[in-house]
């Protein structure tokens, strides 16, 4: 717990990750925060921007091949920010790679996910993968909060080793409303638009 608090403080100072609660307020509801993905710092910045009480019940989803590959990174991901690992290159036959996420939501833990699936060196997010659609369908009670992470792509772009301390902002929007019987592609595009609108 102490490590997480120190980490949150350090990240907030380093990247000035200020949370701008534009469309919603911090609340202990079951939420799926989904954001654009530009750097390894994204997970940390968004998680650290949440107030302490929410941080305790929110699991950031981290790529197993980067964060779970053993050593300091896995220790840091689990003890530092309570990550939930997802296997990006999982073999479908071995079961649904989203199963740990479904389990977490059923337990009442909010999630932070990056629907693009990979980091993108641009200001605006690209097309979303279908994971968020499946999560939203199976958990209709969860609020879908679009988040735009600004400037992090400049602070620590792909391939960089050290972050440049820029003032990054975390903009949280209004929960995405659900539409009965909406097709997957339409949903994904609508979700993506919600993030772009926050930019």
């Amino acid at each position, binding site marked *: 717990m102490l490590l997480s608090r120190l980490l949150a403080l350090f990240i907030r100072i380093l990247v*000035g990750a*200020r949370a701008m609660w534009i469309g919603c307020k911090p609340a202990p509801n079951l939420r799926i925060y989904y954001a654009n993905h530009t750097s390894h710092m994204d997970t940390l910045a968004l998680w650290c921007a949440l107030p302490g009480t929410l941080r305790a019940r929110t699991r950031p989803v981290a790529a197993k091949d980067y964060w779970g590959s053993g050593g300091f990174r896995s220790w840091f991901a689990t003890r530092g920010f309570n990550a939930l690992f997802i296997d990006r290159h999982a073999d479908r036959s071995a079961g649904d790679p989203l199963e740990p996420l479904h389990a977490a939501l059923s337990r009442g833990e909010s999630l932070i996910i990056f629907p693009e699936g990979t980091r993108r*060196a641009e200001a605006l997010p690209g097309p979303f993968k279908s994971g968020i659609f499946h999560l939203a369908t199976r958990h209709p009670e969860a609020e879908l909060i679009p988040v735009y992470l600004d*400037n992090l792509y*400049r602070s620590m*772009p792909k391939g*960089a080793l*050290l972050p*440049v*301390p*820029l*003032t990054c902002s975390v903009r949280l929007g209004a929960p995405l409303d659900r539409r009965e019987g909406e097709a997957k592609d339409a949903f994904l595009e609508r979700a993506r638009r919600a993030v772009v609108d926050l930019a």
Partner: protein
Amino acid sequence: MNIQQKFLWLFGGIFVLLLLASLVGWLLQRRARGRGGSATIDNLNARVRAWWVMVAVIAACFLLGRVASIVLFAIASAFALREFVTLTPTRRGDHLPLVVCFYVLIPVQYWLIDDDWYNLFAIFLPVYGFLLLPVLTALSGDTEQFLERVTKVQWGVMITVYCISYAPALQLINIPGYVGQNLLLLIYLLLVVQLSDVMQYVFGKLFGRHRIAPNVSPSKTVEGFVGGGLSAIAVGAALWWVTPFSPLQSAGMSTAIVLAGFLGGLSLSAVKRSLGAKDWGSMIEGHGGMLDRLDSVSFAAPVFFHLTRYFFEP
């Protein structure tokens, strides 16, 4: 009077000033509450609160000694440079030079002060930094808007690191009869510059009519500048006893500080407008960012440093 006594008198005076300001702000707020509140008075009180914090931090640093003041300004430079770079457009190819600025240039520049190495301190950034940064950017291979990007980073580093580092560097000047008291010169500089800013703001709000450069800074007026500037010069002249200057010399130095500070504020306002921002950041409530507070210091510090060194170091 020895250095401790001078410190006590100075900070005692600042404490009284702040108390007065808080009192005035509180009274004004009570009056305004009856009429539904006022944004200007809320801003004024936010500013005064921020001043209490800033003065407390600076006082603590001075009590801890010269190294603490060097570290304080190094951190201030880092925050100011961060605000500057956040607002200027950069590309992937600027990442390496920016990393070097934050992780190498700032620590080295301030370490040179601690090491008492004036000659390298004075040329490290304008010569070696200046020559190194375009090389690092060129090595990334991205030539899109190359000149614009390189010059913006250069300028940012010069203002936020090189110029601001002249403030704690005042301890490098050897003034006979004033040995070991240079920290008082730093307080003198900060007091005159910031008082000038504050008084220009107050005079501007009370008597401001003729704008100086409305396109650049809507709040700078002739009345504000003259009234605020003259009050700051008067205070600076009255503080001659903390410095190695005579009262007349102190008045002259204060005039230089006030002028340079004003021009610094004006120039950086122009840069801000061209970048489309009203404030450099929002770190300090009521004031904006770190650079909003240090813009006057960035011009005043080098001028004050070199005038003092030229005339008072044999």
